[in-house]
């Protein structure tokens, strides 16, 4: 149905409940809302935080392209994507995808599709801040994330 998505790139935390409410409030044709929240894991206590760098302008443009493909493939009523940048402490949220649809399968699949493409197509990079104070590494891209795209071809 190609409904436009709401896309925000921001340093601030987001309010998941408010984002769900914004998508479904006043709409009585929505039967299914799926949210995905991606959080900063502490890697067994070794990680204090992640520093997330992004390509301003391209980040919005690329996520819009991914969202356009998702809303063309599945009958989604509405979608919201919020991706944070800057320093994110362990346990804090990094990314939120919310999809609303008449039926559950479209909501689930569109959200999973968004996350798979955000992982390896959206221009963000993560650097570790280690808990022992040592200089962290840039997080390597995972082959499994690239492989995850195959199922959508």
């Amino acid at each position, binding site marked *: 149905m190609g409904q436009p998505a709401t896309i925000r790139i921001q340093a601030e935390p987001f309010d998941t409940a408010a984002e769900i409410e914004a998508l479904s409030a006043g709409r009585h044709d929505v039967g299914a809302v799926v949210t995905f929240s991606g959080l900063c894991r502490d890697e067994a206590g070794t990680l204090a935080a992640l520093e997330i760098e992004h*390509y301003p302008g*391209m980040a919005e443009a690329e996520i819009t392209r991914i969202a356009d493909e998702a809303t063309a493939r599945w009958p989604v009523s509405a979608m919201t994507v919020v*991706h944070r940048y800057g320093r994110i402490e362990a346990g804090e949220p990094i990314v939120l995808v919310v999809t609303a649809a008449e039926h559950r399968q479209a909501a689930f699949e569109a959200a999973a599709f968004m996350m798979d493409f955000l992982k*390896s197509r*959206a221009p*963000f*990079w993560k650097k570790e801040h280690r808990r022992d104070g040592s200089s962290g590494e*840039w997080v390597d891209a995972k082959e499994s994330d690239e492989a995850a795209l195959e199922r959508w071809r």
Partner: protein
Amino acid sequence: MKLVYFAWVRERIGVAQEDVTPPEGVATVRDLLEWLKSRGDEYAEALKFPEAIRVAINQEHVRHDEPIAGAREIGLFPPMTGG
């Protein structure tokens, strides 16, 4: 054209962006990466494995065989780790 660098490409080259005028004959992304490697040790180090470098022209992903003619902005960066 403007080049913009991110993550460890930016750190290794030492600047976040710069304006360059590649010589004639630098036609594709692959040519551009090779030419940049000749500009100094920091470039050679950052771009040592060119196949690991991801490239966007005017903020859209492109392959290394893409022509660069007419590009206003070219981004060079490692594989992305979003989400």
